């Protein structure tokens, strides 16, 4: 085996970082969709990712459905979970304060995790890669075909969301709720339905993240919390509420972890990402692309 050059090593760190970061970015986008409409940080976001992975394994491996059918069925099921979450846990809360709502999402995440461990047990599950496991060599760095799927789905998600929010009536209505819920309801937008839609959408995106990452990293019932924390970090780093910010934040977090692990110390790699996050926050308190005005309007 030939020795790997430094340039190839750096390229490898970048590719790995971008792949891992894409998953964080998708989680962060999910956070933002709900945050924009409701001001809630949905700590169950990571559980959507976990559910996406595990349900996909069930559909594709246990039921033997073809990839595309299993993919769609999984997304529909996880979206339903998102809708149920809003109807059963978020909407019934009387006089909601933001902290109460956050605690409710934590309760939901505990419930989902407990149910998943009851259904699937504690062991990890594997999903076949979408287009085989034969790695491609590129300038001395190795790329798994699944990496393309992860990064590709992030791009698809980003494009689809920007079209949805900029070009469609419903999307514009949701953005209106984000800017000012009272004004939105005055002009006849059903804010409750928009909130429901935001939960459905972000559950679907979480499911996509889970489906695409499972062939790389396996999936088990308690993976959600850590992904939620990293995704939250990415969303904050980019600026809460900003979709380009979420994607940028996710990719930066993933890359710092990867380069930190490769070049400095793998034990402290998670700490590097968080230290960078803290430093950025201290200098730019609303994240890279967040606007200070919006964070003023949002109550806590």
């Amino acid at each position, binding site marked *: *085996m030939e*020795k*790997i050059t*430094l340039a190839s*090593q750096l390229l*490898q*760190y970048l*590719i*790995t*970082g971008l*792949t*891992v970061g894409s*998953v964080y970015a998708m989680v962060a986008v999910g956070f933002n969709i709900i945050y924009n409409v409701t001001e809630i940080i949905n700590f169950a976001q990571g559980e959507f990712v976990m559910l996406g992975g595990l349900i996909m394994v069930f559909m594709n491996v246990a039921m033997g459905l073809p990839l595309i059918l299993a993919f769609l069925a999984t997304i529909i099921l996880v979206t339903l979970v998102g809708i149920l979450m809003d109807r059963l846990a978020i909407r019934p809360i009387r006089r909601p304060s933001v902290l109460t709502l956050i605690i409710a999402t934590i309760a939901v995440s505990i419930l989902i995790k407990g149910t998943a*461990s009851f259904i699937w047990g*504690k*062991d*990890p*599950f*594997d999903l*076949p890669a979408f287009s085989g*496991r034969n*790695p491609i*060599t590129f300038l001395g760095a*190795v790329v*798994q075909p699944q990496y393309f799927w992860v990064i590709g789905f992030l791009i698809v998600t980003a494009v689809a969301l920007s079209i949805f929010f900029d070009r469609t009536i419903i999307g514009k209505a949701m953005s209106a709720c984000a800017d000012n819920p009272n004004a939105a309801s005055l002009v006849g937008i059903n804010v409750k339905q928009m909130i429901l839609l935001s939960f459905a959408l972000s559950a679907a995106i979480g499911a996509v993240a889970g489906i695409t*990452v499972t062939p*790389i*990293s*396996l*999936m*088990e019932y*308690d*993976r959600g919390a*850590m*992904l939620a924390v990293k995704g939250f970090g990415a969303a904050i780093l980019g600026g809460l509420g900003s979709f380009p910010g979420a994607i940028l934040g996710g990719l930066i977090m993933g890359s710092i*972890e*990867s*380069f930190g*692990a*490769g*070049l400095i110390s*793998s*034990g402290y*790699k*998670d700490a590097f990402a968080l230290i960078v996050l803290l430093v950025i926050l201290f200098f730019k308190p609303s994240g890279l692309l967040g606007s200070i005005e919006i964070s003023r309007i949002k109550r806590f």
Partner: protein
Amino acid sequence: MTLRRIFIIATICFFGMGLLISQANAFKGSYKVGAVFSVTGRASFLGDPEKKTVEMLAEKINAAGGINGKKLELVIYDDEGDATKCNLAVKKLITRDKVCAVIGPSLSGLSLAVIPVAEQNKTPLVSCAASYKIVHNEKTGKPYHWVFKTPQSDSMAVKAIYTHLKNRGITKIAIMSVTTGYGASGRSELIRLAPEFNMNIIADEKYGPKDTDMTAQLTKIKGMAPAAIVNWSIGPTQVTMIRNWKDLGMTAIPLYQSHGFGSRKNIELAAGAAEGVLCPLGACNIAELLPADHPQKSVTMDYLKSYTAKYNEPLSSFGGHGWDALQLVVDALSAAGDDKAAIRDYLEKKKGFVGQHGIFNFSPDDHNGLTKAAFSMVIVKDNDWALVD
């Protein structure tokens, strides 16, 4: 308003029931043994098979008429891998449930945490965790009076791996470990024993238990070109790590895993990538491979068959520690009754106990009773284990 009323009444009933259930107690004419395992939480890979194993064993013993005609009553608590819960559970077993011996905890750290409790309350504790420190009091240089353990120490697994490497003429190695108690303990033994075997550790990489990818760490190792990699982890990361190793085209560098790799489930999850991976395993994981005249053959085959039949899942490396611990206590109960001191004295003198993970010979200086011979090196071949040498 009614909804709230119902809710409040339900809550009261609920706690009332809890009190009632907790009062149901004591089966006349029984031996009470306590167990604390990390059945859920971060170390469920240890506690879950341990709990299933001891429940199965207790059922079997009671079906065969119990011990000396008395029922074996097992009280199992789940510590969830949490020091506070573990401490509370052991104290509760001793003071409220009044058990005559405790088996567990599953984790080394938690076992160390409850040693003072066992010593203070003069109750035999048979730990199911690996660390050497559990049976070695650094202040006196001797074992703790009341504490025993059944798993091989990590140092034995490390010695088995290093001996194998040395025989192959390999000295330049890279190590990888997961940042949990399991990984950290393996890592410190790997570093501590390296000079003894002339091993030169050129890279020491780590990853988190929930990481999705270890390509970065392996790329760094690839750049340093070691002659072998030793990885110490458990759970999904050890499988992901193997896949990354294969994808990066590093199969020319032999990969050694810890004994935690000892479940066929891991080979299956690696989806073909585990071919050629080496690891040290105890007898119960390779029961089928043992020669018919091996002293542990019948014990391990029996366990393997009944476990897989009952729970319909492959045997892990760790359930056997629970088997050894409970069977030891059961032997002590049938020979010495349920006096705590008598159990302890019996265990300390026990010789030639044929268990799942080896043949135990206890003594006042050795409360573990195993030697390096308890491990055999195996290799993954055609998606199954095969003995090396």
